[in-house]
């Protein structure tokens, strides 16, 4: 595929794939024929169309903007805006978080506080909505006198192509992940280009992710989990953005209870299976929780749904670790 010289050529390359063509037409609320007419030069898109087009192809954003500038210089300067993303957390936001920390009812405390912080993080990291995801992963409570062996993604938020709403997440992360490495070392980690292996640090690239930064959520040298920030762009984590990520990780400390923090020597992540393998296990989660509750009830020892969920998470963690271990043994 040759390097396109106009935005029309670039669009032509993108919409060669029929599904992508349909996706873009739907996103832009135009006919697929209209897209073809833009490519051929028979029609000129409106400013609003170009705006939506750039939003809908985040991985081509920079190239597209450069090419569009040749034909519509005024549009590009407007699109870029003169405002730089805020790279410091404002005192107003700190005060909001502290107020929420004091006032939120216990049952909503963790989720709502994470929500407030992650929402702000997304808006500051990605005001132009070119694609950022932020996720909080928590250290799995250890069982049977063992160390923390994995993290579990709890909650996430993003800008397209990721989901913008607050989503409960569930994937387990272990020693194979950048998050596992960050909690094991107690230090933030980042990768500016996940498409090429640049270091010895472990990482597993997720869909759309081109670069990532991970921060342990630490209080008094003890760790509760990690803040994971992913971007659709390579080299996204400038020094200012890396500092901003640390500030958000520091704020997230407020969401966790004191007993949810672990000493560094108690955190020894093990290998977890890939997200694809985990998915089939995680799909059974609710079914297994119900089964545990029914069983407990039959044994005249009823347990709450929260207790049942915790039990099932621990069972699943054990099973997945065993699965990864067996796969490693077989590979040897």
């Amino acid at each position, binding site marked *: 595929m040759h390097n396109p010289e106009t935005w029309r050529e670039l669009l032509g390359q993108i919409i060669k794939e029929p599904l992508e063509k349909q996706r873009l037409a739907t996103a832009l609320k135009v006919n697929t024929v209209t897209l073809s007419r833009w490519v051929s030069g028979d029609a000129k898109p409106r400013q609003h169309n170009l705006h939506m087009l750039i939003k809908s192809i985040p991985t081509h954003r920079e190239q597209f903007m450069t090419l569009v500038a040749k034909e519509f210089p005024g549009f590009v300067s407007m699109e870029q805006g003169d405002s730089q993303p805020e790279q410091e957390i404002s005192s*107003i936001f700190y005060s909001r978080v502290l107020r929420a920390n004091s*006032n939120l009812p216990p049952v909503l405390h963790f989720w709502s506080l994470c929500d407030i912080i992650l929402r702000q993080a997304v808006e500051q990291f990605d005001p132009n909505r070119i694609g950022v995801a932020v996720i909080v992963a928590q250290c799995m409570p250890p069982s049977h006198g063992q160390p923390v062996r994995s993290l579990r993604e709890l909650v996430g938020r993003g800008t397209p192509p990721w989901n913008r709403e607050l989503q409960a997440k569930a994937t387990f992360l272990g020693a194979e992940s950048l998050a596992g490495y960050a909690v094991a070392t107690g230090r933030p980690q980042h990768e500016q280009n996940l498409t090429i292996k640049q270091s010895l640090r472990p990482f597993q690239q997720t869909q759309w992710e081109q670069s990532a930064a991970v921060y342990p959520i630490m209080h008094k040298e003890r760790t509760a989990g990690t803040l994971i920030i992913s971007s659709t762009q390579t080299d996204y984590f400038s020094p200012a953005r890396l500092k901003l990520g640390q500030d958000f990780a520091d704020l997230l400390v407020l969401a966790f209870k004191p007993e949810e923090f672990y000493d560094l020597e108690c955190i020894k992540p093990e290998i977890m299976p890939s997200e694809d393998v985990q998915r089939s296990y995680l799909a059974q989660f609710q079914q297994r*929780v119900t089964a545990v509750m029914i069983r407990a009830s039959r044994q005249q020892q009823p347990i709450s749904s929260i207790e049942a969920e915790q039990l099932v998470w621990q069972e699943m963690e054990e099973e997945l670790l065993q699965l990864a271990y067996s796969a490693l043994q077989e590979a040897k």
Partner: protein
Amino acid sequence: MTAESTKSENTYPLDPESEAEMGRLLDQDLLLNRTMEGLFPEQLDLSNVHRVLDIACGPGGWALEVAFEYPDMEVVGVDISRLMIAYANMRAKTQGLDDKATFKIMDVTKPLDFPDSYFDFVNLRYLCLFMRKEAWPRLLAECMRITRLGGVIRLTEPECGFANTPAFEKYWGLFYQALTKSGQSFSPNGQNICLTPMLKRLLRDAGCQNIQRKAYVLDHSAGEEANQSVYQDLRVGFVLALPFIQKANVAPPEVAKALCEQGVQEMKSEEFCALWFILSVWGQKL
């Protein structure tokens, strides 16, 4: 207007100054934008829409989306909550949209502080939670005054609480009874809000013409795409609505609390089936 004065006059059943409520409203805006397949009615010619007002804008979810998606529009949002407005303005600044979107504290049950014939599009979404039924004609008369000739007023309201699980339905029932007691329901027996059947009449009585409507359905049953989003919305909404239900004395407080907790649990069940209906009605000032 101070926070204290707004608090005493406020009929909103959930604490409008709560951070948890603000987060819930922001996600609800995203959910509704997606369910309604866009920010404006698809039949509307947007070439004449430049000034937009969002009434009871909360933390600015809809208004900021408009400012982002349509850079040539100027959007104003008004709400009674000082916290929501402060946050909306902060979000506008963070997103670099503060030159296109502004937010003001305003009690929309009182005369609106805007000139005549000022807006091209006036949006009112989910006002059911605080509007007393007798307040609607006054508000819509004000909307007509500030809308230009040819401009559009749109009302969007829900009917929720339809599910196949007992506590979830019962808890919604208590909520509707409490709303009825506080004069916010058009239902003669308090079984629901009964606002959606009224929307067309309310607009027509206000003098709107060319009235059109579109219904949407949000399936938040187990396994459906919206299940998680609505679960997150309602798990917060249920908890925040509990003091309002208990204060209305429509059930013993411990019964209401148990239904609240059980209702949230039921939403996680694999058997859970539930629908949320939304009706959007819009008309022109001619």
